[in-house]
């Protein structure tokens, strides 16, 4: 079984706004996870309607809980151009997406869930968030994340 939950999911350049980014993300995730596009897209949008998922340093963490049998999946996407109309808590345009999908009935003690929790705890560390934000490519961001999680 593949224990790696983090994946590089590059998006096509020139997404002009949040809605189109979510749409492009949904299409990629549906493709990777072999799920129906509307299931992912509606779940991501539903979460966004409840309240923003932005952090700081130009990072956003859209996420979706889906009623499907799917693995925990975290997609890392570096946007070639920041989305000027989608801003983080410090008013920086969003340029790095950490999107995750979890199945509705996932066990809280599943190794993938524990790894995801550990990762989000790391996002409480300002220095790590800054380093992550400076990643130019998905590969660089993934390397940082892997190393950080190995330190724990």
């Amino acid at each position, binding site marked *: 079984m593949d224990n790696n939950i983090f994946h590089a999911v590059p998006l096509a350049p020139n997404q002009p706004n949040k809605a189109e980014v979510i749409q492009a993300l949904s299409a990629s995730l549906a493709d990777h996870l072999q799920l129906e596009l509307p299931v992912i897209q509606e779940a991501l949008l539903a979460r966004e309607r409840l309240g923003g998922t932005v952090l700081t340093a130009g990072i956003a963490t859209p996420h979706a809980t889906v009623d499907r049998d799917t693995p925990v999946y975290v997609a890392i996407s570096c946007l070639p151009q920041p989305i000027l109309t989608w801003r983080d808590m410090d008013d920086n345009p969003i340029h790095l997406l950490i999107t995750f999908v979890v199945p509705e009935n996932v066990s809280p003690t599943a190794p993938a869930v524990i790894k995801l929790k550990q990762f*989000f705890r790391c996002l409480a560390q300002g220095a790590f968030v800054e380093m992550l934000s400076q990643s130019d490519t998905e590969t660089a961001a993934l390397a940082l994340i892997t190393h*950080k999680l190995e330190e724990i």
Partner: protein
Amino acid sequence: MTDQKTRDLLTYLSTNSGFFTSKELAEVLNVSPKTIQRLVPKINAAAGDLLVVSEKGRGYRLNYELYLLRRDRVMTTNDSSAYDRQLGVLRELLLTSPNSVRIDRLFDQYYVGESVIQGDERKIETILKPYQLKLIREHRFLRIAGQEKDIRDALMELILKVDKESDLLTMQAGADQSSADVRFALTQMTVAEKMLKAIMPYPYNVNFFGHIYILLNRTRRGVKLSLRNEIAGQLTTDIAKNPEIYSVCVQIVTNIENYLHATVASDEVYYLFEYLISSRISNFGIESAEKDTAMQISRRYVELVNAELHLSIPQTAMVTELNRHVLPMLNRLKNSIRLSNALLNEIEMEYGKLLAGVTHANLVIATEFKLPPISKDEAGFITLYFAKYMEMHQDKTRILIICTTGIGTSELIAAKIQKELPNVTIVDVVSNLNLEAQLNRTPNVDLLISTIPLKNSFGLPSVLVSAVFTKQDKEKVQRVMNGD
């Protein structure tokens, strides 16, 4: 060129996460543990920061993020033989300070030319900078200018390799390989403890050991420091109140004279006395004219921290215990003696809010009682007294953190709350879909903190916060906790 050992160590640490003891690293790199202990400060000096972090009881690990930034600098500038030479010259200068040393005598054994000497001087200046010390060249002489306490810090860390992570047990364990001076200084610690029938705990013992070692080497070089006029009168009073401690100092000076077959400068016994009365000695009451002031200061700490953090710690519960730290701390402040706090980072992470409160109290107290600035290391020690009380007595607010998954942002918020709100216990982190079930399992929850609006808060107070738990979020939570 970087030496191979440095490359090997950094490569190993960068490809293996976690902590490794010097013994483990020594086995991997096929060198001695002492070599690892010597190599780490060299690498950190070249990096200009703590690239290889050491923690007591855990060993060494790489600061990976810093490594990514400074890798090139360390890999290209650390010339081992040059660093050893620079450290040797620096040792001589520090131990001879405030006196000057002839440049040819300093470099005689290294057979190097003027350009190398000038390069070494620049490097030594860089090494000294963090200690607020300056290298002064006057004709063909060099000397180090700066305050005595800074010279001691540099000697302890650069020459003796005694840093915040060192403890005397480790040093005792390694004493067989150490110089006779180190073994002698360690023995004097035992002499002091036996005469006082008491224990000098960490980190006071490390400080005292360092002082004896430096005294030995300065005596050998004929360096004499005069007692500062402003403290001479006060010392006489303190000696009269603490004859047992003074006897220990006289005995240690006698032992040093026998060991060196040389006379120790007469004022050194007073410096030794300053160190001992500035230490916390378990089961031994230090008498001081400052006793009443120390008690007032201890009370003021409790008042100020209570006010700053909206706490209600009773004076009676803490003052006596806190005073055991404050009394020797006053002596340390008076005598410009620094006490490193190995746990400062952990204290900051675990009790950040409390530490900030104590640090603020330090400013107020230093002003009110006309004291020199009280260091963050001291603030860390004092914070632990408050933390201990709060852990034992305080009823914490029990909170449940909620987001849509119970996995993502709520974990981020939990990590921040743990750091910033010492008065709360996080009962659990859950999805909004499981909130009712969770409350049935753990009914004694005081407050809900959520990243999404809750349709039903089940009669409990709730606070909506952002995914990054900003300062404003923290204030909102505190207001609700305070019933505002």
